[in-house]
């Protein structure tokens, strides 16, 4: 998913300011989000519409990829899914957005897990916003 005109996401902060994310999934600019309280996160989906997350204490974003080290397609970085997380008290909502054509492109999976779930504990703590 690459678009040179529309950012991947927009963040509305509680102080009314807006941050525009990067323009493709290889350069998301997530690390450059100012350290301010987020009011809402609008994330652009592969079909062009938006998923909106709001009301969480912290947000996390990641792009999952695979690289084969053997086989016919070795060496290619192949995007698999976008993950968005919203943390509130001891719960974390997780959205997975599929990126694999003919498999799960654009499909959204949602689950709620405890903050002590291994998946959550092993995320890079620096990247919560």
């Amino acid at each position, binding site marked *: 998913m690459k678009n040179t005109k529309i950012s991947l996401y927009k963040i509305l902060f509680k102080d009314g300011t807006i941050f525009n994310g990067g323009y493709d999934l290889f350069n998301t600019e997530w690390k450059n989000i100012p350290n301010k309280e987020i009011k809402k996160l609008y994330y652009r989906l592969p079909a062009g519409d938006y998923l909106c997350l709001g009301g969480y204490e912290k947000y996390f974003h*990641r792009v999952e990829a695979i690289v084969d*080290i053997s*086989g016919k397609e*070795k060496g290619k*970085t192949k995007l698999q899914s976008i993950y968005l997380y919203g943390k509130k008290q001891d719960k974390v909502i997780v959205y997975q957005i599929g990126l694999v054509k003919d498999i799960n492109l654009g499909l959204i999976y949602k689950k709620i897990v405890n903050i002590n779930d291994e998946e959550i504990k092993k995320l*890079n703590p620096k990247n919560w916003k």
Partner: protein
Amino acid sequence: MTNMTLKINDLDADLAVGDSGASYIDVDLSNDYIIWTAGSDDVKDGEDEPSEDELNQASTLIAELVETQVAHSLLFDYSASELKEIVGMGENKRYVYAFSFDGDTATEPQLEAWNDSNHNSTTKNVLGLGTPADSMVKAVCTTGALPGANWAKTGGTHINLAGSGASNVVKLNDGNGAITLLSGEGSRELYANIAIVIPDGYATPAIETFVSTIRYSWS
């Protein structure tokens, strides 16, 4: 994004990337490839690219009464046009396969094995015919410590690699989660050792390929 580079040790598997005297080859994943073989005069370190016949003649023989560990793993180095022995493969050695990341990751990188680049099946003989616990591809994370003697054999510390189930992937940071580079650190290397062990008397000789995959993410 964060990029991953595969490096293989071609000299001394007691030395990490960056150690004095260490020698690693940056694998050109587009052109280089890995061969698992019993080895022969034509299929060994320093030889040129083997033909199909030469590879067949260097096939591993399946033993009737004891499990058989494939003796050699060789990298065909396209730029040098020769085979390079992957030093320490299958031994009680820590620094064999190095997965080098040039930035932070959002999750812990993991090693997986699949039938092919569709990454949705593990039905080949070498991967256990759909039963991951029976996979002949054995791997162990060595980022933090040696794998132990006979780690790839029955009863060793290995993981049977097949698919993406939690019990059949290798977390490359010893289960400690995502990696964060320190200030001034240009890359972080995570290590694994990989071997193939064929059960005793396995009844289906085959030439099979499989796909090894690194799964990771960035923010």
